[in-house]
């Protein structure tokens, strides 16, 4: 039987002495170390959240501090859920969410698959591809409006060059049909590297021996791809989708700079709509209820998704 050195040392010194040598007890140190973090998070995250929930049952307006605030019960929630305009924003958000995820998964996985062939210099090119996602979405989004200018923009020029259409004949951010795609294109440009990096980690985690075994069994490359590569990379892919889903559900900075929610309400995602209600129309109580609904939605969807993810992982 072996006794760990610590036990031996502890057994050798009387209790009081050990305490003086070691200083504070581990338990105290643990609390000293954790408490500031928890305190700050409570103050800046949880306290505001509780305040939001409280405000959501009132008709408080920040810009009219002298008005008497009254409790309105669930009326804010009723009004939001029965407002057709909100469902339009939800639809715009869903359209944005679904298409960015589809495009980013397809392009990101393909890139990861290609990079995983380990051609010369793949590290360098991976780093270059990653650049867009590290940059400020607001600053970059603002510059994309320049690329999207109908007469002078580089994007329109390139499209015109390849399709033969007139570069001045279409406006990506001014046209109700094109604007939803304009934001999808920029988001895909920015965040495909994110999906790519996670997929790459997934592909690299598959041991060569599995492919070697498949090769011995004369499985075709096509078959290997669908029965080994895809299932084994799936948990990683799903994780990437989770992150992108949460991020794009919250999407604000990039789109507000690109289109500001327009033209009309075609690119008014929920966060942009919420910002208008809260900080332009100053309907604080109403927008608090809106915020609670959004939070419950993202939290609920994320929890269901994580359950599914864990099932896939266990398989």
């Amino acid at each position: 039987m072996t006794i760990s050195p610590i036990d031996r040392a502890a057994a050798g010194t009387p209790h009081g002495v050990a305490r003086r040598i070691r200083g504070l007890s581990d338990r105290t140190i643990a609390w000293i170390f954790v408490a500031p973090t928890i305190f700050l998070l409570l103050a800046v995250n949880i306290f505001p959240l509780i305040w939001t929930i409280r405000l959501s049952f009132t008709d408080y307006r920040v810009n009219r501090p002298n008005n008497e605030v009254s409790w309105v019960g669930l009326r804010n929630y009723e009004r939001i859920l029965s407002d057709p305009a909100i469902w339009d924003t939800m639809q715009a958000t869903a359209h944005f969410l679904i298409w960015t995820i589809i495009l980013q998964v397809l392009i990101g996985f393909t890139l990861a698959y290609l990079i995983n062939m380990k051609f010369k210099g793949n590290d360098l090119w991976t780093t270059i591809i990653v650049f867009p996602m590290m940059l400020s979405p607001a600053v970059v989004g603002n510059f994309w409006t320049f690329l999207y200018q109908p007469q002078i923009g580089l994007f329109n020029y390139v499209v015109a060059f390849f399709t033969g259409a007139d570069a001045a004949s279409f406006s990506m951010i001014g046209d109700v049909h094109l604007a939803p795609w304009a934001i999808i294109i920029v988001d895909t440009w920015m965040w495909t590297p994110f999906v790519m990096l996670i997929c790459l980690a997934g592909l690299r985690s598959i041991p060569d021996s599995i492919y070697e075994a498949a090769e011995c069994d004369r499985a075709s490359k096509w078959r290997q791809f669908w029965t080994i590569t895809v299932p084994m990379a799936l948990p990683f892919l799903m994780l990437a989708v989770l992150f992108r889903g949460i991020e794009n559900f919250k999407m604000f900075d990039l789109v507000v700079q690109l289109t500001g929610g327009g033209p009309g309400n075609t690119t008014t995602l929920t966060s942009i709509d919420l910002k208008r209600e809260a900080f332009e129309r100053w309907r604080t109580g109403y927008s608090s209820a809106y915020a609670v609904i959004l939070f419950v939605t993202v939290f609920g969807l994320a929890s269901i998704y994580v359950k599914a993810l864990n099932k896939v992982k266990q398989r």
Partner: protein
Amino acid sequence: MSFSVTEPRMGTKWLAGILVVGYAIITMVPLLWIIATGFKSPNDSIAYPPVILFEPTMEGYVNLFTDRTRATPQMLKDAGPPETWYDEIAQNRGTVITGPSRYGERFLNSVIIGFGSTALCMILGTAAAYAFSRFRVPLKDDLMFFILSTRMMPPIAVAIPIFLMFRNLGLSDTHLGMILLYTAVNLSLSVWLLKGFIDEIPVEYEEAALIDGYTRFQAFYKIVLPQAATGIASTAIFCLIFAWNEYAFAVLLTSGNAQTAPPFIPTIIGTSGKDWPAVAAGATIFLIPVMVFTILLRKHLLRGITFGAVRK
């Protein structure tokens, strides 16, 4: 030379390489275009077809850093010959420089708030991560999940009460307010990442130190901190980049005094319409540091963006 059945053929590798390099070049075009536009004259920046070869000028940068006013011929005559190269550029456009623009201040705000919040976040985050990694903290998993869940909230949703709270505490539009806010937002990332890094350091080192008579605190800063240095550094860079890029809180909670660069850069306008070279110049100066950091971080990128969920 070893031969492996799993190794792709030479031709396949070449094809993969060409496709990836092609994508990388396309994806860099908008960024290169930002850098190039910063050195274009206003006419070159809006030329059609877009010009790739042009005569570089510093006009965009001069316009970015100065306020100018349109000058009458008399005023130009009074001003005399230009004293500096930037006066000359301004006078060639029939304007005189009236003073520095706000960009310098805004950039400095970004630096102060970015570094301030990162420093605070690392101090709090390292301590909490160490405790979560080494001690039996009651409700540890719940606390860790709580820390993570704070990241799921849309910033606008929390911004309403924070706006009210800051107004009551006199923190609106102050550096301190923004530093505290960004610290809180970044704590989830730093605690999760750092816990992962500290978990990887063998406990035996500290046990040995404790036997040699170190206190817990000494063991923490003489043994664990040096071992976790790379992890701490890369976590710090991630926090810095987040604070640097943040827009939603900055645009809602700051207006003048503590406004950072991201809400400011899109508002840069020239004397006649949008001054794209100046915007591009501002963006270039703002984006280049992040690109440098990205290169430094490349080994830990994956870990950082997934909150430590995926490790290479």
